């Protein structure tokens, strides 16, 4: 506990000293008498003042919240001595903000009194965040000394990105062998009717279509489309980001990645994540809500790690990029290494779609004409990269975060329908 003399103590001591000295120097006891009440108050305060004894603890209800949600903090105060004034200041941690206009709380407490306060903080950005720091100052009843208690660090919360519900997803070109919700183009056991064909030895009797058999006088069997699932890899580019005070491309990218992952998991597809940047991270494809939480936990740890090292997709473990997987790349298309890696993935035969988190809204051309020209050239170069992807049958759709994510997803699906099948490289 740190003690600091209050302004009151400093004032009264200064007046006492000045009155006494001037009174002694001039031989006028009246001046000493002027200072006497201030000296008496200080003496009384030092003799009778009690060190404030208080226990302050703060708790938060859970450790998982969504972006934009409120985090109610419960502050428990227990006074063991009389406290004239207790000041609590809750300083929100990074990514959180105070909901009220007054983050400070003050209270007067009697000995043995317990009080509970419930300030609320609001999450602003996804990520693992410390909730904040609770600092506590107290004054005794004479208000001569300020007592500052060591600040208490509140726990941490994992703020998940706010996800959008996507109605239609980018349909994968290839499906896996395991059962799912998607109707495969192949023939096999399933619910969806495909066609009838003549009976061949080895066909099971339960597949015989008796109506067609009776009409044509020869045995026919029904063919059906089996239900399969797909492997989807969300490829998050973390080589570089562009930001301004309102946000960053990485913030949008993580929101998009979590929405896309949740959308495919809801359709019983296997979803994995690859974070490709200064550090290559990943999560093997899997099903279910447990996988969704694992993906969200992995995504909120995403950060841009600056590196000069050349990296390509050979660094990504093979289990994280299974064959026939649909790779949805979420990238600002800034770093040549990530662009090269995406071309490499396409060349290796992966079904690829790119959601471009456009850095253009976060940039402004400089004040001179050459800056404006450079900005335009940069945008033209970006357009050329997009065109290059599209020439290889890879849809590139732009997302600024303002319109729903469904718009670029639908746009990518439309592109894929238009070209029917991606062009082989």
């Amino acid at each position, binding site marked *: 506990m740190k003690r600091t003399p209050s302004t009151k103590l400093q004032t009264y001591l200064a007046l006492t000293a000045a009155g006494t000295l001037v009174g002694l120097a001039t031989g006028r006891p*009246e001046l*000493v008498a*002027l200072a*006497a*009440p201030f000296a*008496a108050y200080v003496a009384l305060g030092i003799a009778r003042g009690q060190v404030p004894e208080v226990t302050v603890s703060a708790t938060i209800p859970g450790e998982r919240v969504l972006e934009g949600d409120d985090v109610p903090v419960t502050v428990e105060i227990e006074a063991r001595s009389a406290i004239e004034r207790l000041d609590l200041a809750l300083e929100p941690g990074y990514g959180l903000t105070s909901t009220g206009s007054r983050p400070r709380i*003050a209270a007067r407490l009697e000995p043995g009194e317990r009080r509970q306060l419930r300030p609320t903080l609001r999450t602003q950005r996804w990520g693992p965040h410390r909730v904040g720091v609770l600092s506590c100052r107290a004054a005794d009843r004479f208000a001569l000394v300020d007592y500052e208690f060591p600040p208490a660090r509140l726990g941490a919360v994992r703020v998940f990105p706010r996800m959008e519900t996507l109605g239609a997803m980018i349909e994968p070109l290839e499906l896996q062998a395991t059962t799912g919700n998607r109707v495969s183009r192949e023939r096999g056991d399933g619910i969806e009717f495909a066609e009838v064909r003549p009976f061949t030895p080895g066909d099971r009797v339960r597949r015989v279509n008796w109506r067609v058999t009776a009409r044509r006088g020869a045995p026919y069997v029904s063919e059906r489309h089996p239900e399969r699932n797909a492997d989807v890899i969300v490829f998050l580019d973390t080589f570089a980001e562009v930001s301004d005070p309102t946000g960053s491309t990485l913030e949008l990218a993580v929101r998009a990645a979590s929405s896309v992952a949740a959308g495919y998991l809801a359709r019983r597809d296997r979803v994995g994540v690859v974070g490709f940047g200064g550090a290559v991270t990943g999560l093997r494809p899997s099903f279910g809500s447990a996988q969704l939480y694992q993906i969200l936990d992995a995504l909120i740890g995403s950060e841009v790690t600056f590196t000069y090292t050349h990296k390509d997709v050979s660094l990504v473990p093979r289990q994280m990029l299974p064959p026939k997987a649909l790779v949805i790349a979420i990238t600002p298309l800034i770093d040549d290494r990530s662009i090269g890696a995406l071309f490499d993935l396409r060349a290796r035969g992966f079904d690829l779609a790119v959601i471009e988190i456009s850095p253009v809204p976060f940039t402004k051309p400089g004040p001179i004409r050459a800056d404006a020209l450079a900005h335009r050239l940069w945008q033209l170069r970006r357009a050329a990269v997009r065109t290059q992807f599209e020439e290889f049958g890879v849809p590139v759709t732009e997302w600024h975060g303002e319109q729903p994510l469904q718009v670029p997803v639908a746009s990518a699906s439309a592109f894929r329908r238009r070209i029917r099948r991606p062009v082989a490289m």
Partner: protein
Amino acid sequence: MSGLLVTTLAALGAVLLVLAAVMRWTRLVPWGLAGLGTAYALVLPSINVTSAAVTAPLVAGGLFVAAEGVFIAAARGAVPKPEPARALAWLTASGLGAIACSALVLVLATVAIGRSLLITIVGTAAAVGVVALLSSRSQGDRPEG
């Protein structure tokens, strides 16, 4: 000239105290009180001893009440707000206490105690006692909060 100086100092002191109370700038309180006290000190030689003995406790009480009043006013923006009745009672009691304390000092100052080694020793012991008390209080138990 002296009258103008006294008036100016007193007015300046009063203005500073009002400003401190209104704007909650408690750092101005010592300067305001110093202005008023200096004005009184300048007036003091021109009044007789009996008047001084009567006025000094009243001025001391007034200054103390003004200081306490400003500190209470400066805390009015805080939560919880100072209760008016409680503040008024405290100001009245502290004003009366200040007058009594100041009068006691004046009475003690007029008592003829003579000059002797014993008085010097008692005075020195009292000063040492005050310093020891202050030191022991400042290094007292420090519970962690």
